[in-house]
């Protein structure tokens, strides 16, 4: 089975801190994704990566950056956390275009 793991289930940070969210997948998938999930808004794509060191902006990239130095790892970075970035963050991976995405358990981030 594909396994996608995220570094933390719950995280509390202060405004202005730099925050790193880590995601690791174990199935050699080409594509990896970061979403945020908010009530009533569903899943919104922040960034995705289709290869090592390759990234593309999603629908809401402002305030975020990403890093993919190794195929199995995709990091989401909040350069200066703000309270409006309090949310559930979900990481996903997939093998090829159009295929299903496999999700991690999510990180619930609270920015105070």
């Amino acid at each position, binding site marked *: 089975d594909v396994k996608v793991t995220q570094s933390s289930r719950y995280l509390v940070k202060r405004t202005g801190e730099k925050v790193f969210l880590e995601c690791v997948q174990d199935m050699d998938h080409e594509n990896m994704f970061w979403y945020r999930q908010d009530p009533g808004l*569903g899943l919104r*794509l922040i960034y995705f990566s*289709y290869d090592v060191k390759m990234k593309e902006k999603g629908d809401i990239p402002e305030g975020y950056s990403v890093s993919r130095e190794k195929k199995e790892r995709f990091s989401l970075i909040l350069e200066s956390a703000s309270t409006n970035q309090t949310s559930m963050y979900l990481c996903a991976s997939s093998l090829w275009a159009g295929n299903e995405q496999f*999700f991690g358990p999510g990180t*619930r981030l609270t920015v105070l």
Partner: protein
Amino acid sequence: AQSVTQPDIHITVSEGASLELRCNYSYGATPYLFWYVQSPGQGLQLLLKYFSGDTLVQGIKGFEAEFKRSQSSFNLRKPSVHWSDAAEYFCAVGPTTFTGGGNKLTFGTGTQLKVEL
């Protein structure tokens, strides 16, 4: 651009009753279609998917969905709901052609299912 509409934000059904969750999509051709389920505090789990062929697809946990091209719909059904089915359900549409930037699924905003005992 592809889009997905789940018109029901909340649905409440009694345990043992049948269930249908609606999903409509907009896409230039026949897309790949998915239903995911999310239990509280968890990530999303794939219930079923449609790529081609038989328009009635079976999934896990007794769920099925029917692709209707003429209605641009992919509704999720279950004949008898169990209390453990209470969760949030997401429909998603994916491109069938490689667009050069990886595949991107577009998700609906979700339907929250409550099951009354």
